[in-house]
């Protein structure tokens, strides 16, 4: 029995290690390449460690690399993304909370059908709405601006945020609401005094989810942004496709890492709240 057990274990561990290595290899190559200088990237091996830690590529990616006609690096795009992502995440989370609250606790005639329709948005490919959305943004005077991007991301995020909150609030006991109604609390008071304070787990889940979706989005970024409202995903694409004579892989890698850093940071700092929030119940006892 012992022999069979350890061979099985060995095979399992080996498979897992190989899988992990495959998965992490690109990340390793990225980090290692970004720390090399131009010479080393041409001469050296893809997988070799850098001779010395050289952050010049990072500096270039941030402030001097060329993205199309301009050569200001990723910096302006980074701030565009921040200006777009932060309001969009906050607005879509609040809006989702309100929707979830209404749909789960103040059921009206047709609310289930309404929710079903809203759910289509979770599965709908966003390419479908590119053209009509361009028109709408034009009518609203929001085309090619960060405001327009915020608007689009709020709408796109609404189905999933509503879904999160509605399912979370569905576990709130009806008696709690009845008690509040008897005490004289109205729609808003129940929401702000009772529901919101107990929503911390699902708010964490929604914030993390929305931030990841919005920061990493490329489709809306490339379709609806103007010259000075491009998010970092578009900037990165431009940077990687712009080359003068020689392709500076180290700068490209550094730029990609800069673009990925915020979402990785969110995961590292708050990732466990995501899992906790998804498995948390609303109210116990």
């Amino acid at each position, binding site marked *: 029995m012992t022999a069979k057990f350890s061979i099985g274990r060995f095979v399992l561990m080996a498979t897992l290690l190989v899988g992990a290595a495959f998965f992490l290899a690109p990340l390793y190559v990225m980090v290692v390449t970004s720390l090399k200088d131009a010479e080393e990237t041409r001469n050296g091996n893809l997988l070799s460690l850098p001779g010395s830690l050289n952050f010049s590529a990072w500096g270039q990616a941030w402030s001097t690399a060329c993205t199309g006609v301009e050569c200001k690096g990723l910096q302006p795009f980074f701030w565009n993304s921040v200006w777009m992502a932060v309001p969009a995440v906050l607005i879509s989370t609040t809006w989702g909370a309100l929707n979830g609250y209404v749909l789960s606790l103040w059921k009206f005639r047709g609310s289930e059908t309404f929710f079903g329709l809203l759910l289509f948005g979770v599965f709908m490919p966003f390419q479908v709405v590119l053209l009509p959305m361009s028109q709408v943004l034009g009518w609203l005077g929001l085309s090619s601006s960060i405001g327009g991007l915020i608007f689009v991301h709020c709408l796109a995020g609404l189905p999933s945020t509503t879904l999160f909150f509605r399912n979370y609030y569905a576990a709130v*006991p009806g*008696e*709690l609401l*009845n*008690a*509040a*109604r*008897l*005490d*004289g*609390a109205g729609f808003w*008071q129940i929401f702000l*005094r*009772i529901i919101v*304070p*107990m929503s911390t787990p699902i708010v964490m889940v929604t914030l993390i989810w929305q931030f990841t979706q919005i920061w990493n989005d490329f489709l809306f970024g490339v379709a609806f942004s103007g010259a000075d409202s491009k998010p970092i995903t578009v900037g990165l694409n431009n940077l990687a496709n712009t080359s003068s004579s020689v392709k500076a892989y180290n700068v490209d890698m550094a730029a990609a890492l800069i673009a990925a850093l915020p979402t990785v940071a969110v995961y590292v700092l708050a990732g466990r709240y995501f899992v906790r929030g998804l498995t948390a119940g609303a*109210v*116990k*006892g």
Partner: protein
Amino acid sequence: MASSLDIQGVRKCFGKGDKAVEVLKKIDIAVAPGEFLILVGPSGCGKSTLLSIIAGLEEPTEGAIKIAGRNVVGVAPAQRDIAMVFQSYALYPTMSVADNIGFALEMRKVPKPERKKRIDEVAAMLQIEHLLDRRPSQLSGGQRQRVAMGRALARQPQLFLFDEPLSNLDAKLRVEMRAEIKRLHQASGITSVYVTHDQIEAMTLGSRIAVMKGGVLQQLGTPDDIYNRPANTYVATFIGSPTMNLIAGQSMASAQGSTFAIQGADLPLSSAVAHGSQALLGLRPEHIVFNGAAAWRGEVSVVEPTGADTYVVVKTAAGDVTVRTAPQVRVSPGERVGLEIQAAHVNWFDQQSGVRLG
């Protein structure tokens, strides 16, 4: 402060067309000010629905609910001046005990010092002053119960509603809290409606009991009425533990006047029915005694000592009969015994409808 409650012709249907379910079928109950009315019945009898209608959390399909003479159907729950204690307590989980108790007052914009005074008063009444800063999740079941009652008391309402508040407590705590609720009712004198499925709570707490089944009011009366003069076999077997013995038989004429003939014996009882008709004899276990000389005989099958009493199940030709005796009386399974009936306490019911006769 105490006000009357009139439930007039209340009907409640759920669903429409041929899927309509009539949960309450024309309920009429008048509750005097300061009374403690119990709504008791099995699950699904409509008692919680009736309570929700009184509270304003549901609207009746038909009928009126009058609190202190004013019809409150259509009035929002918060405007009815009532307070409710729920089965799961429904305490606000993110607020402290003090905030929970004062929430209703806060919603009515009562100024803070007055609120604090009232919270302290209520906490003292319920002996929970030391818990005021805790969260509900840090309290035991009994403590949560008290906080829920405190929240209701702080409102000083005209009507108190209880929805099976003791169901979630263990047996010992339930007995303590029952006495607590009774004490509070005597001290505050607020008209109360209490829903329960536990017939012991019904008997001990109520000034009047309304027994319900299938949305119909079976009997409304004092605990004494309900126990000693049940209106039908349902009420007779629902209230009282162990349940009343029901024995079918026929009234016969005899030399002494009448007897009641059951399987295996002729009992010297004059029933309320004419000679020759069938009837059901209802006997509570405590109204049967062992008497070796009695005509009705049977064999002891199970002996259940509870400490204070002993319940003996006796197999007779007419069926199993439960007898309650003092613990000193010693019988053992297999023994043949005679059963004597205390004629003053018999109940007669129609065999087909179960309705009380005479």
